[in-house]
């Protein structure tokens, strides 16, 4: 019999921990999909309390207007986006947004991007002195000219970025890895060596869509990051590959990339993810998290597993 608490709207067997944070659910809402944590609460039936953590919108030191439209385009079983890290800047986030968050509802993770190694360190330092629960380092944004994936695709640069953040904060650090690189496991290892407490696997894949009547890219920035069910098999393999390295160091993974169903979530956990990230699928079904919570809780119960941890990395290779 499943134990379901009305007060927390949560299943007891879903409670888990990630980088030292106590989570009510293994679901993490992904950066860039849910604004600064308040937007989806406009939808009746949606609650931040239904997820373990929320990664807030990517934040840079200074405000950014972001990229020109179109910023999103649907593709086969997925979508491209190139938002370009539109955000009000670190100070506005710290002074205006963080105080308005209900920190009792869930755990909040800030996602940071810099245009230089030093800037990453500076942003991490500023957030170190806030109530934010953890810092996700975005070294994999494919949609900005400086920083982003330019750091994430070079393991040595990734190391330097994580290292400087580590020196500037005692909060848990999660590094969001790019799939647009040859050896993601090696990159993960370098990030762990530099002091990353957790890894987010994966960010979007670079892609393009073309309007054939205009012979122009659909996306204003010409290219964008591909997300949605189309990338799930790639993301799943990357989680499996990274897990081979991260498990030796007991560094947990947020598995993410195209998760849209209960089965998807379970597959990622079996592949090695401690928690799972939901992003694009929320656009189709804003109430998806409750369904995944229930489905994962049911699966654990039916398979005689006490908690999510018992399932993590349980993949049996052929």
């Amino acid at each position: 019999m499943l134990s379901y608490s009305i007060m927390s709207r949560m299943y007891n067997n879903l409670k888990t921990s990630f980088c030292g944070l106590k989570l009510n659910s293994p679901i993490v809402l992904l950066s860039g999909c849910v604004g600064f944590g308040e937007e989806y609460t406009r939808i009746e039936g949606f609650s931040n309390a239904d997820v373990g953590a929320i990664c807030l919108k990517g934040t840079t030191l200074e405000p950014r207007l972001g990229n020109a439209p179109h910023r999103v385009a649907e593709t086969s079983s997925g979508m491209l986006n190139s938002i370009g890290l539109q955000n009000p800047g670190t100070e506005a986030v710290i002074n205006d947004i963080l105080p308005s968050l209900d920190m009792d509802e869930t755990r909040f993770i800030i996602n940071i991007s810099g245009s230089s190694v030093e800037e990453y360190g500076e942003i991490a330092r500023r957030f170190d002195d806030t109530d934010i629960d953890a810092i996700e380092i975005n070294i994999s944004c494919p949609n900005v000219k400086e920083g982003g994936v330019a750091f994430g695709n070079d393991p040595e640069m990734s190391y330097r970025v994580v290292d400087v953040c580590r020196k500037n904060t005692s909060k848990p650090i999660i590094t969001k890895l790019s799939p647009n690189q040859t050896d993601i496991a090696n990159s993960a290892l370098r990030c762990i060596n530099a002091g990353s407490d957790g890894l987010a696997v994966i960010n979007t894949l670079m892609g393009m869509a073309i309007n054939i009547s205009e012979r122009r890219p659909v996306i204003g920035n010409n290219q964008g990051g591909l997300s949605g069910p189309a990338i799930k098999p790639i993301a799943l393999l990357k989680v499996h590959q990274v897990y081979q390295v991260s498990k030796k160091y007991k560094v947990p993974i947020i598995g993410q990339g195209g998760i849209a169903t209960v089965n998807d979530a379970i597959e990622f956990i079996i592949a090695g993810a401690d928690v799972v990230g939901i992003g694009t699928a929320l656009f189709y079904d804003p109430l998806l998290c409750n369904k995944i919570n229930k489905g994962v809780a049911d699966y654990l119960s039916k398979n005689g597993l006490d908690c999510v941890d018992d399932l993590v990395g349980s993949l049996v290779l052929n």
Partner: protein
Amino acid sequence: MCDCQILAHYQYDGDQFILTLDSSEIAKSTIPGQFVHVTVSDSIPMRRPISVMSVDIDNGTFDLLYKVVGEGTKKLSESKIGDILSVIGPIGNGFELTDKKLPLLIGGGVGMPPIIAIAQKIKDTDCDPFVILGSEVPFPFTPEHSNIGPECDEVSHTMPLLEEWGVACRLTSLQGFEGVYKGYVTDLAKAYLDTLSKNELSKVEVFACGPHPMLEAVAKLSVDYNLPCQISLEEFMACAVGGCAGCTVEVQTERGSAMKRVCVDGPVFDARSIF
């Protein structure tokens, strides 16, 4: 968010469809200019934002007009009476209806719905609106002779629903349809404005929705005649709740350029902040 059943689904020329969905909540609460975000098929990963065209509060239904332009709207067009669509809405900041007694309502193509929604909202007030609807494909209704508004043999046809509501309307197109003004919506709007006295002009506010070049021309006309003008924009959209910043447009504010989200900061903006 709610599940809405399809009660009617009519096809018109030019791959245009009018869809009637049941939801007394949406019928009651929608403000002209607001839209709904609907699922079109299990196989299409994104919802589609579609403006509400009219509501029937008594029967708890609302109508959407859309045109097939891609895979998603193609799938939507294949849906049948009795099918269920998941609907988020109504969403966004609709038109702000002011005390101007001579609203000029301009809709082009699939930009007609929010304009028709305004006409429905103000049809029983003391406003005296004039509606101009333009289309370069056959209209998504059968134009009929109008007995309301300016008399002119060549420009005599209207949308039957607006005639039923007692709202003056004329149609425009470059295609040479019978009873339809041959030209752009802004040409007919200018001709209409030129018939008004200075006092009457002071009571005009322009409301528009349509293709970007049309909105730009309407915005310019409003500046030329010194009229307030609200426009409703569309943009590719993902979440429709303000979470992803995927649908932004550049807007001029007192503090300079800003990127505003069409879904929750709009879709209605002051025309002067856009053009």
